[in-house]
């Protein structure tokens, strides 16, 4: 299921399908390894629900929700 990264819940796993950001924001996201095909997992949210913390390529990255909006992901069905 394709959705934006903002819609993911803590512990959800997904694969990045598109990063629709250009310019500085896009460059920053790519430098940190957010490119299509990257597997991610939401590991937490800040006390005020924003920013969100996600794990990818063996490290933890934090993003604001309005930045997460640029990133589209393919959400994996939860494995019980």
């Amino acid at each position, binding site marked *: 299921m394709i959705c934006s990264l903002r819609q993911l819940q803590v512990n959800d796993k997904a694969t990045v399908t598109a990063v629709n950001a250009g310019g500085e924001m896009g460059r920053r996201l790519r430098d940190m390894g957010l490119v299509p095909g990257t597997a991610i997992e939401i590991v937490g949210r800040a006390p005020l629900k924003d920013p969100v913390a996600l794990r990818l*390529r063996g*490290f933890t990255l934090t993003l604001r929700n309005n930045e997460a909006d640029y990133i589209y992901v393919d959400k994996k069905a939860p494995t019980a």
Partner: protein
Amino acid sequence: MNNCTIAFAGNPNAGKTTLFNTVTGSHHHVGNYPGITVERKEGHVQFAGTQLNIIDLPGCYSLTAYTQEELVARQVLVEERPDLVINVVDASKLERHLYLTVQFLELGIPVVLALNMMDDVRSQGITINVEALAKGLGCDVCPTIARNGEGKQNLLQQAIKTTNERQGKWQPLHISYGPDIDPVLNEMEQLINERNFLTDKYPARWSAIKFLESDENLVEQGSYDQTTSSQLQQIVTNLRDHCEKTLNSFPEAIIADYRYGFIHALLRKNVITFPEKEYRFDVTDNLDKFLTHRVLGPSIMVFLLYAMFQITFAFGEYPMQLLAFLFSSLADFVSRVIPAGYLQSLLVSGVIDGIGGVLSFVPLIMIMFIMIAFLEDSGYMARVAYMMDKVFRTFGLHGSSVMPFIISGGIAGGCAVPGVMAARTLRSPREKLATILTAPFMPCGAKIPVFLLLIGAFFSEYKALIMFSITLVAWMIALLIARLLRSTLIKGESTPFVMELPPYRWPTLRGVMIHTWERTAEYIKKAGTVILAISILLWAAMTFPGQTAEQATAYQSQQQQLQQMMEQATTPQQQQQYSIALIDLEKQQGAATLKNSAAGKLGTMLEPLSKWAGFDWRTNIALLGGVAAKEVIVSTLGTAYSLGAVDSDASTNLSERIANDPHWNPIAALSAMLFVLLYAPCFVTIVVIARESNWKWACFALIFNSAVAFSLATIIFQAGKLVS
């Protein structure tokens, strides 16, 4: 002996600085790159008959022109052309860290990869085939553990060997960027080579890639050759249109995809094997469950910061008292050895009081820095930024504004100078400016002595509570003013937050110590130079021109009269009476001298205004001096009081004197503390603000902050007077 220049480079949190410290020991030098405030660290070490000059480049994720750190790293490589780059990577996050490595290889500079944090790799059950990695990348790879020095010898040997083999020759790596980009890239490369466009500095293909990435810095450098530059731009524009229409993407995005693709493919060729069962980041994950928990996280944060005050004061008090005692003994000694007069006055009131006032706070500042270094190195500081971002954004700032605020004294005891400098990591000029202008509101280490002095005089039972409240008030006002600025003078959109949360690590003693020492040395250096000079200058301003001739004559005749009467006195009671009268006369004369001095005149001139906030002319002198450097406030008050009251008994400390002065009372003390907290940044900070923005904003900070401080101090004082 051979000479060899090596640049240490890598992502933030790769252990680069730890490795640098391990390799160079204490033989390093910290400076700044000209014109900007990125720190330049250099170290020297002799190894196997070779003199190694090591530059610790600022940490960066990429070689774009995104931050000043990245630009500096690139400039050093291109302009200074070191013999070799030791690229420090966190082996447990190899895939992302290699993204920077690949860019070094594309630039062509000789690289040795320091595969750092091998202990983490082992404990996570990951295996890395070092030979295969070296073969895939085409550069040498040395496993290291910076924290305990493992692999250091091998790394340096390899570095020297590679340097000798390559002899400074650059060999750019060519990566395929796919069917859409590659032909264009070849075309551009050919054009660049034909015209010798920037080829003295950059490999042709690298320039071409940077043009495709719309790298502002390189495009600007290329503007010397308008024809070639615009031809290249035209090619880029065509490709950009093509990519947008057919692939719904941008050239720089495709380039990044292929770079990661190259790394991914390389790692899959038996280079890296992960354990069957996915590694859980146990320690960090479990800690984060508490430390960034919705309710627990912020509570723990406030508790930790509060505990820091308690610890600092508990441990800092004894060495502080010892130093204060040493300096007052020294002043006593000098008073006895040197006869009374200008020289004695200069040495005691100008030099010893000035330096002593500053140095006695070094222990406190060291303890503060130890704790800040601990929080930074442990990874907790990043969590603070993560937890606070939502709040900061509400006030028009950025989660990363936490750093400048904390370093400036958000955890009391910092310094606005490095604090303002720390704001350079903020990419958005608007958030950066708002942070720079409001960070000096924080209770820096130099303001603390003033607070301690006044707390000691009026609120000694509530020391920690008041210090904590001062910090909270500083944060509140800084944030509110930031919001005000961001919705009036500095309007505009916010910048990306995108930040790494490093795993929790137990900081190394050595790392914390080096960090603490560097910052303390900075403070002492400032104290030793600027403040000594200002202290002497202020002493002169407070001593000259002295009393008028008429005053002097009148005083002398009065004195003679009293002395005569004392000699003629018959009873001991009468004698005592006259001797008290003599001392009183001396006190009045001392006060008259100060009042008639240059500083006294200015302070008196301002008194009609400053009395609204409860400050007398003595406080005014001290506060004026504080604009030069906040450290001066206490020493100036000390000088003012020791000059004004002639029978200066060394054991009566300044706190007591202030407590006994009728001009002071608890309300005036609160008003003064608020004013000192908020008013004009010290001169050094103003210079740094000017460097980080421009002189217009620096002058704005001087006037605006003072106005804010004076208004609030006046409100407090007037309200306090009404209530009491």
